[in-house]
């Protein structure tokens, strides 16, 4: 029976892959749209899986996050607290005692499990950053519209593994898959500015981000717009273009919501 199962395990993916290739070559040339979200890929995976790919992408992203926290999926969310930010991220912390721990006699199974399973809140160090990348890669491949996967993978590539060129290539692919997304455009611009000192291309990317943000309505994208405006003002000031700086300030003052006043203030301070 195991032999039959193993033959099936090899045959089924092979069948899916070859059929997918056949349909892709035939339908992509006709401009056949397979899924409103997935675009005109003509990929059998898009036809069959649809939103399942998004769910798989999210699951893979969670796996990557677990890897960043030493393999623990349930690591608690304290990313904004000072205590967590002050962690020495390069070392395993002393294992935390679970809150409201019952006595060993009342719940021996839990007591034993707590002692056996790792529980501390840790972060992966720079040297181990490459361990997360396979999961981000899988998340990007599984779900080409998972913005967070592209953004996080690019961040790790550029800042933790010192591979900014690969990060740019990845972001280009992400932008190609999500042409109206502001976040990826800003990430691309930041990498161009920080790692390549290519301020001209960075400014063009921020400008593209700002223009894309004009079509977005959600509050998060308003923040992205503010970020783009801030950098555009910053770059204008850097090349001593006061007219452009004033123009960006005016736009910021007129279009930004009151809760984003800090960005406006920053632009004004820069003047």
């Amino acid at each position, binding site marked *: 029976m*195991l*032999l039959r199962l*193993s033959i099936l*395990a*090899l045959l089924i993916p092979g069948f899916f892959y070859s059929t997918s290739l056949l349909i892709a070559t035939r339908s992509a040339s006709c401009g056949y749209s397979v899924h409103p979200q997935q675009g005109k890929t003509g990929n059998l995976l898009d036809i069959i899986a649809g939103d399942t790919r998004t769910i798989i992408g999210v699951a893979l992203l969670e796996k990557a996050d677990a*890897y960043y926290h*030493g*393999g*623990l999926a349930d690591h608690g969310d304290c990313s904004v607290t000072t205590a967590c930010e002050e962690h020495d991220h390069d070392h*395993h912390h002393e294992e935390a005692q679970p809150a409201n721990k019952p006595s060993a006699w009342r*719940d021996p*199974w*839990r007591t*034993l*499990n707590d*002692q*056996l*399973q*790792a529980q501390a809140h840790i972060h992966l160090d720079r040297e181990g950053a*490459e*361990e997360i*990348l*396979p*999961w*981000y*890669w*899988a998340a990007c491949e599984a779900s080409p519209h998972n913005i967070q996967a592209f953004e996080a*993978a690019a961040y790790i*590539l550029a800042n933790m*593994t010192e*591979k900014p060129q*690969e990060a740019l290539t*990845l972001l280009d692919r992400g932008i190609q898959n999500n042409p109206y997304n502001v976040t990826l455009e800003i990430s691309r611009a930041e990498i161009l500015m920080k790692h390549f000192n290519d301020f001209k291309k960075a400014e063009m990317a921020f400008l593209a981000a700002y223009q894309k943000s004009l079509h977005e309505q959600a509050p998060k994208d308003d923040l992205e717009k503010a970020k783009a405006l801030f950098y555009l003002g910053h770059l204008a000031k850097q090349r001593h273009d006061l007219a452009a700086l004033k123009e960006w300030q005016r736009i910021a003052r007129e279009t930004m919501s009151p809760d984003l006043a800090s960005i406006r203030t920053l632009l004004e301070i820069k003047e």
Partner: protein
Amino acid sequence: MHTLRQISALMRLSLFDLYRRKDLVVVALLAVVLLVPLSFATPFGVKGASRYLNEIALLLVWIFVLVISMTRTARIIPTEVESRTIYPLLAKPASRTVILFGRYAGVLLASLSVLFLFYFLYALINNLKSAFFPWEVFLQAFFLHAGFIILVTSLALLGSLYFNPDANLSVMGILVVSMFLYGQQLPALAAEHALPIRTLIHTFYWLAPHCELFDMRTRLIHHWPAVPWSVCCMAFLYALIYAALCFWAAAGLFNRKKI
């Protein structure tokens, strides 16, 4: 002494049976087919990642050993009855309990030998690939995995005297996997319910096999420090006591069974 000789003869029978059937070869080939292409992958052109490979390898080890040990144990008695080979065994001057124990111990030994083989290969490949290998955690992981196998095989043995092999595998598979995934969440689930159901969930929590205790994969893959050996021994002791109770119940059933 005579009983021991009988048991060892029955154990040898099970052990040879496993290696004769080539299940292990198929499983090992399947693992190679899955793992070798993955080992050549360089996501984003970055080399050096190994934890994902270790995780997949260990997951395969867990699945394969669980499948082999449970299918083997679930078919000990039903296959003997079906093929009528149980009668020559029963005709021998050995009690039914000795026969059951001998056959069970044989399957358990065979499963543990498979486990040892897989862990040996895991350690060998890891030692060749990376400079650091957490030996102590590795040994603890193997020790607890062996405890897990003792636990699930005893459950499958008990189930084989209640259900037919397919139903037994389904029921025990669901029980083991559910406890593995949600065992520690049962008290929280109980707290959300009113009294009769809460008591029911609590009773189940106390009686069901806590398979989740034996999973040390996260510690091994992510290089967490080892746990005290006394804690490991307690978990192993739990597995032994649970298995002994299951065997005792299975022996009681087998002794009363009309064949």
